[in-house]
């Protein structure tokens, strides 16, 4: 049974379909990359899986459970975590406090006690922000903010991690660091939205190409790389940039 299965997913906004007839599946511990030009519907897809939007049609099954009608917080407790395209944290709190916020008990409160401090230390070490743990989140550099984003999602110990363009705006060194981090993540399925083809080819076990809300192509990196349609619309441009 796949970790996540999406069938016939569609999302309509007042007259236009952001997504239509989307099918995909993610296995446990597999990294699926979703690529496509701007406006193809990638973030909408993530919002649908994460729970911020409900689908107009279709179903989403996570570990055998239908989740498309569940609110965000329930999906988080089932084991889905996400990062946001524009880093989304608590700006007035320190990095440490932000991560503590991710460790909550039930839906009403935070967790307390020694276990929490240790867990926060672990995550800080994992993403590499130990030295900055008392800095206010708003004062972090762009790259550090992205690491915090990832740290927040990882603190939730997810089974499915949704990453929305995690390397956007990063320097080469920062991007490499993040890619290494992601590569080292185990024990979870990952859906990665990315613009940078290099990153995608490095990390993805499978790739799905979205175009105008539909799945244009799906398969392992080698296949996608060689697909002419995809090259024309997307890879061709990226190659020119690279």
């Amino acid at each position, binding site marked *: 049974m796949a970790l996540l299965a999406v069938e016939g997913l569609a999302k309509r906004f007042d007259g236009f379909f952001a997504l239509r007839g989307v099918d995909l599946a993610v296995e446990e511990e597999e990294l699926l990359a979703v690529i496509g030009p701007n406006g193809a519907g990638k973030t909408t897809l993530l919002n649908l899986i994460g729970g911020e939007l409900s689908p107009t049609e279709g179903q989403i099954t996570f570990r055998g459970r239908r989740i498309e009608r569940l609110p965000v917080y329930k999906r988080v407790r089932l084991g889905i975590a996400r990062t946001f395209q524009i880093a989304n944290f608590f700006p*007035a709190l320190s990095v440490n406090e932000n991560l503590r*916020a991710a460790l909550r008990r039930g839906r009403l409160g*935070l967790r307390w006690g020694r276990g929490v401090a240790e867990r926060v230390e672990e995550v800080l070490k994992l993403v590499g922000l130990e030295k900055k743990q008392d800095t206010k989140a708003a004062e972090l550099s762009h790259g550090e903010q992205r690491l915090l984003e990832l740290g927040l999602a990882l603190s*939730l110990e997810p089974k499915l991690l949704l990453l929305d363009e995690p390397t956007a705006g990063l320097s080469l060194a920062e991007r490499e660091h993040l890619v290494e981090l992601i590569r080292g993540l185990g024990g979870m399925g990952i859906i990665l939205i990315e613009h940078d083809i290099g990153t995608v080819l490095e990390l993805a076990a499978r790739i799905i190409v979205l175009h105008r809300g539909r799945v244009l192509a799906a398969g392992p990196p080698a296949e996608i790389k060689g697909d002419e349609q995809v090259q024309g619309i997307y890879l061709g441009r990226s190659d020119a940039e690279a």
Partner: protein
Amino acid sequence: MRVRIGRLLGGGALALACSAPFYLGPFALYLLAEILAWGLFALAFDLLYGYAGMLSLGQSVFFGVGAYAAALGLLHSGLGGGAALFLALGVTTLLSLGLGTLLVRVRSHGFIVLTLALAVIFYLAALNLRGLTGGDDGLSVSVPLTPRWDYFVNLAAVVIVFGGARWLVRTPLGLALQLVRENPRRAASLGYGVGSLRLLAFTLSGLLSGLAGVLYLYTAQFVSPELLDWPTAANPLIWTLFGGAGTLSGPLLGTGILLLAREWLSSWWSYGYPILVGILIILVVRFAPQGLWGLTKRWRSLR
């Protein structure tokens, strides 16, 4: 250092407040007792706005319903003061729970307008249901409390609620509320039940507003539909803003200062107070959005 000054001031204020009945006359005590009741209302408002981040222009509904429920309990059911209080608290809790369930699903602008509409609806309803509420004549009650005892009751209520609220906002639950205020989207995606937390805050605020309403009733011994109308709901917003939202002590301070100012101004310029408040609001929002408390923080951090 800051905590100690705060505690000293707080302790001093409390000592002063406790000794007041021994050198103040009944009218002054009455005024202070009223200020305390309104201060409690401001605390209820601050919990909802300053801590949970929800701006409601309709908390007057719970204040007024609390007052009316207690009044009706006293007048028609022959209840004693304590029983009427509990009746009123029960009614306001149920009301805020019920309304809150509907309201917390609505986004910020809609929420604000709905609470506004709610206040107007309740106000007009109270005006119309003369049989129940006495219409714009209102209801008079007599409560066997001397000004001195009434003052102490209100003071005790404020101290207890203030203490309780200060404790609450530091608990995991209180912190979760503030997370929801800071970034609801992020909080939801970290697994917090944003809707449930908001409902909790709304119900708590409604309950405390109702309590404030009952205390006001016992002090003023009179309730009228104006207490339900939206200008009454706007007052704690003004006091809280002036004192500093999200600080608990700020709203109390703001209420005290502004109501004393109103009392003073009304003796020689009856239009003065609203004009003062209007100008004050504009100045505060422009230059000191954190209120008085924020100013003192800034002053302290500069030294």
